[in-house]
């Protein structure tokens, strides 16, 4: 671990300097299309949660969709 410490410090410094040098390649004034409501990931939270709940109670898979609430779906 002691041998790795300088490498970790150098790595962290490189990473932080790299992060600070990243410039937005899509400028704020170029984001009008992305700001359109049709580009929202999830326009209707209740509807999405409801559909997720239906799927989770009929399928073996679950997760990575944004949450589906609780309940059994046993019937």
């Amino acid at each position: 671990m002691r041998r790795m410490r300088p490498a970790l410090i150098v790595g962290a410094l490189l990473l932080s300097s790299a992060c600070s040098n990243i410039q937005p390649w899509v400028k704020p004034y170029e984001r009008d299309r992305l700001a359109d409501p049709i580009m929202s990931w999830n326009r209707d939270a209740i509807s999405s949660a409801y559909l997720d709940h239906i799927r989770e109670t009929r399928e073996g898979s679950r997760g990575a969709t944004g949450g589906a609430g609780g309940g059994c779906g046993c019937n």
Partner: protein
Amino acid sequence: MSMTPAYRHLTRLAALTALLLVRATSADVLPDDRADLFYSKYSGGGLDITSASVLVRKKFTENFAVEANYFVDKVSGASVDVLSNASVIKDERKQKSGTIEYMHDKTTYSLSYINSTERDYISNTTHASLSQAMFGDLTTLTLGWGRTRDAVGENNGTADKPIIAWLGHAESQSYNVGLSQILTKNLIGGVTLEVITDDGYLANPYRSVRYTDESAKGYSLASQVYPDTRTSTAIQTQAKYYLPWRAAVTGSYRYYHDTWNITGDTYELDYTHPLANIWILEGRLRYYKQGHASFYSDLLPFAGSQNFYARDQDLASAENTTIGAKVTYAFLPDGWKMFKRGTATLDISRINFHYLDFTDIKDYGLPKYQPGAEPLYHFHATVLQIYMSMFF
């Protein structure tokens, strides 16, 4: 370089517009206040579920918001594997949830509590998340953690006179990390990873396993025995592209695997098309396929032939396809009293479920079909949603 007054004015306007757009596309602004009324009906596979919900979201300051949601499901009927072993069920599920959100600089903190109650199932979930906008708001990183505690029971009485036997508890924890990334002027991408661990009573008490014997049907039913732990991993990638004619197309793929050896693949495609700033039309396709759990069997050779056994249709090899359409109508474009605008939405989906190793023993059997040789089960479901949203 000198600028004319008119040019300066245009420059200031462009800068102001850009500033507003940054706020609209980054995580450093909380969403609008809104109130939603929701109604839905699910029909298919022997089940009818009518649901209603109300949601209110209110910002108390620019960086603090509260959201409350109440949801009621009314269930009648029962799915085929429940009907094979029980009578028709009537049940009701009530779900209450509350969320508080606090935003500081580029970071949004969220804390939620969800309670879901049925006569024979009580679930309580706490969820916390953190979203951080970075790299000039091109990237939003979200970390989430949730904990759910369930009490699992079985109604041994009737719908009107329930007799609940509490069978056990289950606890699950979820960990998720999500990344949303602006890739070009027209393209956003996202990746979400979620790991969920379960511990406790995980079986469905209303479904049964069947095994071959010398009875008149050629088989008998018995209670299922599940492992008492499960860990699942799901990763979803998605991309949304703004088309040249003001429309959006979204594609996503999710891979799923768990320690019960269920593997799932989900593909979705969505097209959104606004018309004259009043209508938004949306069409979607979804395909899902899964492999069965390692302890799933449609027909065991004899009772207790495995350590764990299940014949729950949700654990069988299966595939389903969904085709859906949604139309949203925007009204009150100039606002009315406290309301800025409103939308009304109609959404209808048709889902075709096909099971690959789960047979229909409710409608088929001896003498025509030997146990295990019954036709595979399939059904169609229709999901109707109607809701209204008011923004203020």
